[in-house]
C-alpha cells in the first residue's frame, strides 16, 4: 500500500512494525467525531420549555464542543503519524496478535448469560458464563470450568440471594432450594 500522504513518521515505525494506515484508530476517531456531531444535532432537538432562560441545551452544546474539538485533534494527530501508546499488563503477551475469535466467544457468553437468567435461573446461567469464558481462554478441562462456575454461582446465589435478600431468580431446577430461604 503506497500511502505516504499519511506520513507515518519514521520514529513510530522504528519502534513497532505496524500497518502503515492505522485503520482501526482512524475509524474509532471518526466514530468519536460522529458522536460529537450526534450530540450537537441532538442538543438542538431538545425541547426547551417556554420561559426557561438557562435551559437543558446549554450544557449539551458545551459537551458537543469538547467532543468535536478533541476528536478532531486525535484525528489530526493520527493522520500526522502519531500512533496510540497502549498500556501493557502483567498477563498481556506484548507479541501476541489480537485474538478476535476469543473476544467474540466471550461477548457471546455474556449475551447468552443475560438471555438465560430468566429462563434457567441465575446460578445455572452463571455456570454457562464462567464455563464458556474459561473454555475460550484455554482452560485445560472444559467440564471442570463448568463445575467451578456452577459452584461459584450457587455460593453467590445462596449468600446474596438467600441470606442477604437480593432477588436472584432461582430457576426451575433450583426452585426447591430457593424455597428454603
Amino acid at each position, binding site marked *: 500500500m503506497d500511502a505516504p500522504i499519511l506520513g507515518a513518521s519514521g520514529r513510530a515505525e522504528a519502534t513497532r512494525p505496524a500497518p502503515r494506515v492505522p485503520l482501526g484508530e482512524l475509524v474509532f476517531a471518526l466514530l468519536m467525531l460522529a458522536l460529537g456531531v450526534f450530540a450537537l444535532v441532538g442538543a438542538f432537538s431538545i425541547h426547551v*420549555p417556554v420561559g426557561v432562560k438557562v435551559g437543558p441545551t446549554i450544557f449539551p452544546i458545551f459537551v458537543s464542543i469538547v467532543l468535536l474539538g478533541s476528536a478532531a485533534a486525535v484525528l489530526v494527530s493520527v493522520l500526522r503519524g502519531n500512533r*496510540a501508546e497502549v498500556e501493557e499488563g502483567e498477563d498481556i503477551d506484548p507479541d501476541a496478535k489480537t485474538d478476535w475469535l476469543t473476544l467474540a466467544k466471550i461477548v457471546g457468553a*455474556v*449475551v447468552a448469560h443475560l438471555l438465560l437468567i430468566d429462563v434457567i435461573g441465575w446460578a445455572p446461567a452463571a455456570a454457562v458464563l464462567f464455563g464458556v469464558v474459561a473454555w475460550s481462554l484455554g*482452560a485445560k478441562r472444559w467440564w471442570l470450568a463448568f463445575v467451578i462456575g456452577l459452584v461459584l454461582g450457587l455460593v453467590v446465589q445462596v449468600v446474596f440471594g438467600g441470606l442477604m435478600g437480593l432477588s436472584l431468580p432461582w430457576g426451575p431446577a433450583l426452585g426447591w432450594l430457593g424455597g428454603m430461604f
Partner: protein
Amino acid sequence: MDSWTLLLEGFATALQPQYLIFAFFGVLIGTAVGVLPGIGPAMTVALLLPLTYTLDPTAALITFAGIYYGGMYGGSTTSILLNTPGESASIVTAIEGNRMAKLGRGAAALATAAIGSFIAGTIATVGLTLLAPVLAQFAVNLGPADYVALIVIAFVTVGALIGSSVPRGMTSLGVGLFLGLVGTDTLTAQQRYTLGLLPLSDGIDIVLVAVGLFAVGETLYIAARLRHGGIDVIPVTGGWRSWMTKDDWKRSWKPWLRGTAIGFPIGTIPAGGADVATFLSYATERKLSKHKKEFGRGAIEGVAGPESANNAAAAGVLVPLLTLGLPTTATAAIILVAFQAYGLQPGPQLFQNQPALVWALVASLYLGNVILIVLNLPLVGMWVKLLQIPRPYLYAGILLFAAFGAYALNFAVVDILILVIIGVLGYFMRRFGYPVAPLVVGMILGPMGEEYLRKALQLSQGDLSTLVMQPFAATAYIVLALLVAGGLWLRRRQTRYEQQLTESIAVPIKADQEV
C-alpha cells in the same frame, strides 16, 4: 481541637466489633482482589461495589475504606512477585521490587513496601484529619460559579494529565460527559439523547459504566492477547519476622518519609494522581541514594520511596473528594459513586450534616492501615497462591462478578446488555490508547457541573462573565493553567527519564542473562 473530639467519637464508632469486622473484611478482600494480576485499584473498587449494597451506610463506607487501602497495596505484591518477561520500564517503580525478588530478596521488598505503606498511610491520614475540616469550612462559602471553576479544574486536569495523549484524554472525558447527559433533565424534565428507549430515560447507571470499563473492557483487552503457558511466581523464603535486616531498615526509613512528603501533597492536588507521585519519589531516591549503582538491579530505596508515595497519595486524594466532592482519580470517582448510592454527597455539607459518618470513615482509615500491615506480612503465602490462579478461571470469575454486579443493581437483564456494550467500548478505547479514567470522572462530575453552571447563570441572568468574575473562580482558572502546564512538563520529563532508565537497565539485565 474540635476535630480531634470528633475523631475520637469516630474511633468509638469504628472500634465497635461489627464495624471492626467490616474494616477487617474490607482490607482482606481489597488486598486479595488487588493482588490478582490484571486488576488495578479502580477495578478492585468497582468490582466490590455490589458487595456493599446490602449494608448500612457506615458499615459500607468503612468496608470501602478497607477495600481502597487494601486494593492500593495489593498491586505492589503483584509487581514484586510476578515474573513477567517483556514488560520493561512501563512501570518503572515496580522494577526495583521485581529485581530484588529475583535476587532472593523478595521478602525484604515486600516488607519495606508494607511498612512504608503503613507509615505513609498513617502520616497522610493525619494530614487528612488536619486539612479536611479547614478546607470544608472554607468550601462552605463557595458559590455556584466557584464550583463551576473547581469542576472545570477537575475536568481539564483529569482529561489532560491522565494517560499519554492530551486529545485522547479529552475525548474520553467528552464521552463521559455525554453519557452523563443521557436521561431526563432534572430541572425541566426533558428527555435528552434517550432515543425514546425506556431503559435510558432514567439515565445510564454510573456503576454499569465503571464496571463495564474497568472489569469487562480490561478483561477483553487482556483476553485478546492473553499470555499463555506457565505462571512464573518468584518464591519468597524465610519467616516474615527476619525479612528486613538492620541495613534494610537504615536504608528504608528516609525514603519512607520522603515518599510521604512527596505523595500526600500531590495526591491532594489534581495533577495526575499517584503515578506522578511514585515517579517523583523514585527519581528523588535515585538522585539522593549512596547506592546509585544498585538502581535498576534491586535497590531497596527504589521500593520504599515509591510505595510510600503511592499510599500517601491515596490518602491525599481523599481530601478533595471528601471536602469538595471532587474526584481526581478513577478510583476516587468510584468511591464517590459508592457515597451517592447511599444518597450521600461528599462536600462541605457532608462535614456539617453527617459528622459522625465522616469521622467514623476517617477513623477507619487509621484502623485500615493497621489491619493492612497486620494482615499483609503473615499472609504473604496466601497472596502468592492467589497469583497462581489459572488465568482462564481468573478472568471468567472477574466477568461473572461484573455481570452479577450489573444485574444486582435493578435485577434487569438489560443492565447486563448495557454493561457489555460499555465493555466493548472500553476495549476499543484501551486498544487505541484512550485512558478510561477521564470518562468515569466526566460522567460523574458532568451532571454536577451542569447543575452549578445553570445555577450560576440563573443568578446572573444569563451573563457568562459571572463565571470568571468571582475572585475565587478567577484564581482557580489561573491555578488550572499552572497545574496543566506543570503537569505536562512533569510528564514529558517522566517519559524521557523512563526511556533513559530502560536503556541503562537494559545493560544489567543482559549481563544477568549471560550469567
